[in-house]
């Protein structure tokens, strides 16, 4: 068995996840040693798109027809597709729920008219999983070095990694931090996927949720808790929305409708 062939790709996003892979300076040689890197445009112009891949890492959300086309191509030739970064896993900040208006209305507000951008027809930003089968995910905005290396290690061994399914609070307790929520700070720890090592709360900054909503988020209780700390519903919903992605956005919309009886514009 030869070395696993991998490709690292980017759709619409800031490319910060690819950059963080490049930032694994001490381990980069090791990565290039255990994998045969076929495509990583950020690192090298030399690429070979003709061979099937064992693993494709894709960052960014699907925001244009071109993104979608590229994603489908990558999916087709890859045995394992890994979504890296919040954009690819949940849709990114660009997919946040901003109101009840249709997406095109929002688009027009920003760009002035419907066909303002001409490179490729735009799509409402969505995570990869909205279009293709995703075998593994590594959330974070951007992704972190240690979780990436951990994931790369298992993938090199031919195993599809699985992320923990519990909130940031667990790792925050392991760090022996004082709870920010108890101090009245806005912190999304209880409803956000762990894996980051509770970096922000460990620096006294409330979690903003960049690892995305946990599978079983009790955001109704989360909202109630933050409201009890004196935050307005609007403030809470804004914070929830930033990294809420498409799915939480839809749930939030339903929630807002049920409590406010209308649209959160």
């Amino acid at each position, binding site marked *: 068995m030869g070395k696993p062939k991998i490709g690292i790709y980017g759709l619409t996003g800031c490319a910060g996840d690819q950059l963080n892979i490049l930032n694994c300076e001490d381990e980069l040689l090791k990565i290039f040693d255990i994998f045969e890197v076929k495509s990583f445009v950020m690192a090298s112009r030399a690429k070979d798109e003709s061979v099937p891949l064992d693993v494709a890492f894709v960052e960014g959300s699907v925001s244009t027809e071109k993104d979608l086309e590229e994603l489908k191509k990558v999916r087709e030739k890859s045995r394992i597709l890994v979504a890296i970064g919040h954009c690819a896993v949940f849709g990114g900040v660009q997919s946040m729920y901003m109101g009840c208006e249709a997406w095109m209305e929002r688009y027009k507000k920003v760009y002035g008219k419907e066909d303002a951008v001409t490179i490729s027809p735009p799509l409402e930003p969505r995570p990869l999983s909205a279009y293709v089968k995703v075998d593994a995910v590594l959330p974070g905005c951007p992704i972190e070095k240690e979780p990436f290396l951990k994931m790369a290690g298992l993938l090199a*061994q031919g195993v599809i990694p699985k992320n923990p399914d519990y909130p940031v609070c667990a790792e925050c307790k392991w760090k022996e931090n004082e709870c920010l929520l108890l101090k009245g700070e806005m912190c999304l720890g209880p409803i956000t996927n762990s894996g980051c090592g509770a970096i922000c709360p460990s620096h006294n900054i409330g979690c903003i949720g960049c690892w995305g909503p946990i599978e079983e988020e009790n955001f109704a209780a989360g909202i109630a808790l933050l409201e009890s700390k004196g935050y307005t519903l609007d403030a809470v919903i804004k914070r929830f929305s930033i990294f809420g992605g498409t799915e939480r956005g839809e749930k939030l919309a339903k929630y807002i409708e049920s409590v406010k009886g209308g649209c959160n514009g």
Partner: protein
Amino acid sequence: MKERVDILKCEVHEEENPYVPERARIIRKYDLTNDVRFFQVRLCNHEKVMEWTTKYKPGQFMMLSIPNVGEAPFSITSTPTRPGIFEFCIRKVGRLTGKLFELRENDFVWLRGPFGNGFPVEKMRGKDLLFVAGGLGAAPLRSVLLYALDYRERFGKIYYLYGAKNPDEMLFKDEFFGMKERQDFDCYLTVDSDPTGEWPYDIGVVTTLFKYVKDIDVENTVAVVCGPPVMYKFVVQEFMKLGIHEENIYMTLERKMKCGMGKCGQCVVGHKYTCIDGPVFTLWDVKTIRNLI
């Protein structure tokens, strides 16, 4: 008083660590159904082969590891009366089993155990035995069935009722077909439906086989049921109709386990740890410990 230099001990005796798995070789494997595979494995350490394969009880389980993927419990489907190997019937359902299905003969897996209470084979001595299996439940049940047949003289009447969805879903078909020929116990097989049209035995759910159960001494009968949880209720009703006491009705349950030794907690139900207090429970346990099935 003579002073001890080192008051605090820091010694590691590796041989005492029950978390360290032993390497075993897959010596045989074949498909029992489209998603259930039979694995026969043998420990690589010859000195441990006989010790390990004669001392377990039917109904116990082993923790099986595949490096990088992890570890999970699997009930032993072989019997200690036929030592030398361990046999498992494994359905492909998750990450670990998915990887296991990629392995070939002569590949390695890692084992530790046996764990769990197992069936009360000593208590069963001299009793009539009524075994009822459904689907994959035949895997743990086969162990105690073969055990009872190998020690045939120790038990009274033996009934084995086994139901599968259809002929293709029946485990160990050839083996059970062969058993039907035996005169010293009663084996009845059924399928819920038969799309092949070639099924030679009963058609219907497993409870329909109870009509064949005759002349058992209910005061002295041990009943065992293994299968999907949905089946338990109906089979238990049949046991009750026959008049078998709830402390003599046994079932084996499935839970997530990470240690097998009552530590990790993930198999806990009420105050029972399925890995040490089970996986074999009586109907009485099931009624008292809520949430068991």
